[in-house]
């Protein structure tokens, strides 16, 4: 079978669109949970891109990179959610704007 059933460009385009949606989420949402989720979407998009690219070359590197991304996502989320909990305790809200004091 042809190596590229799915055109790589399409796969990457999907990844890019997901990536963009995640980016939009970070820019638009005020809820910290949603922002963290947006970051997850972006990480996932990167994983998707690696997998697609890996598929093109038929090598395992793409998948391995995806796995590494998984661990990164996990680590980030863990700390992020920890912070979120603390923020919620101090401010009583998970609205990022209510948390912002630093400026200028």
């Amino acid at each position: 079978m042809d190596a590229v059933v799915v055109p790589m460009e399409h796969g990457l385009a999907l990844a890019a669109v997901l990536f963009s949606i995640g980016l939009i989420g970070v820019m638009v949402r005020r809820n910290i949970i949603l922002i963290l989720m947006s970051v997850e979407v972006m990480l996932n998009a990167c994983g998707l891109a690696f997998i697609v690219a890996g598929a093109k070359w038929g090598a395992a590197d793409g998948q391995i990179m995806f796995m590494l991304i998984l661990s990164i996502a996990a680590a980030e989320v863990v700390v992020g959610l920890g912070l979120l909990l603390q923020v919620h305790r101090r401010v009583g809200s998970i609205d990022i704007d209510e948390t912002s004091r630093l400026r200028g």
Partner: protein
Amino acid sequence: MSDQQLLAILPHILLTTVILIQMMVIAFARNLRTTVAISVIALILTGLAFIPVYSLIPIMVTPLIVLDGYAIYYSGLILMSSTAVTLMAYDYFKDRGEKQDEFFMLLLFATLGALILVCSSHFASMILGLELLGVSIYTMISYPHKGLLTLEAALKYLILSGVSSTFILFGAALIYAVGGKLGFAELASVALETRDSGEIFLTAGSALIFAGIMFKLSVTPFHMWTPDVYEGAPAPVTAFVATVSKGAIFAITLRLFTSSNLIEVPSILTGLSVVAILSMLVGNLLALRQDNVKRILAYSSIAHLGYLMVAFIAAGMIGGKVLAIEASSYFLFAYFITTLGAFGVVTIVSLPNTEADAGDISNYEGLFWRRPMLAIMFTLTLLSLAGIPLTVGFIGKFYIFTAGVTTTLWLLLSVVIIGSGIGIFYYLRIIFAMTKRTETDVTKIEIPIAGGWVMASVTAAILFFGIYPTPIVNLINNLVLSIT
């Protein structure tokens, strides 16, 4: 994996082992002194462990890691900086309640991440190193989490840093898609082969990676987080972020782009030039009338990274590679010790007040008469940041100029001059504040032992290498230039 290869990563193994040991020790007997002692010993041992490595270089340890002179030089800088931060952090945390031990563990984690970063030769190790560094730093920033500011800083850093990591990842994916290679050295051939077909993916990938890296380096327009994080984070952590984190990331960027020859792409150089100019101008302008010393230092670091970018760009110009790498290595050295000095002073001045760090410039008024030694140290570091002779910062800036002149980057150099001019203004403002005569009774500042030693050695280094830079120059020539 051969014995040699194992020996080559001995420092990393050693550090990892000590972290685990430290974890055990903390679990059984919480004692801040012990923890810190373990940390310091670990850092020193790690540094010593590079000595046997020296005879092996350059050596690849799996495709992911390469140990060469360049890596050793930057590892040395990182370890030096980490040690200093550890000592400063000890002073900072010792009077702030219990359970401060994990901080030092995280510090070692971050150091490990940085060490991995500077010797990585592959996107996988680079990204992991970056994340190891980042994840540890998030917690370090928010470590005292009594006030909201640290949390806010950490949260902002976490989210934005996460976003920037995805930039790098996506960029790497694009580059991978072009050539199917993830090792830096292999990319050079990819870049050559795909000069016609896949260049758009390659350049787009590079652009994404650059954007991500520039965020970590806090280069305009990716600098927005810097002042908030610098202000919110505890002073030693800020020092760590400003030195180890940025230094390691810069080192890996330089390695990535020089060994893959991507830096020689003209459009990349153009993009970098624009960013460098923006950084120098915006960073300095932002600091101009700022009243918070930590924020000033943040903005000044933005500007300094702009200067560093000049050397980076020079590395991409014809005939500029060797000198540019040498220049950036020296500049980073200068920047490291100077920044450590600056935040060391901020740490010491912040000690009496456990609620928030001494940010506002009024905290420093009359320091010259209250604590002359401290004030002189701070003055020296500020002068070093401003690039005035007698200080190591001058030699650093001299190197930047040399690199720029060699590659005839006149526009960038004139911006360096303008930026430095603006820079002098705000550094002098702090110095001037320190010389003010204050009548009001101010909090007594005690110079702690550990921090005092750090400051003394940093000051000595600023002066010594400002007057006699030859040892470092030779070191760089022997170690760093091996990658060219």
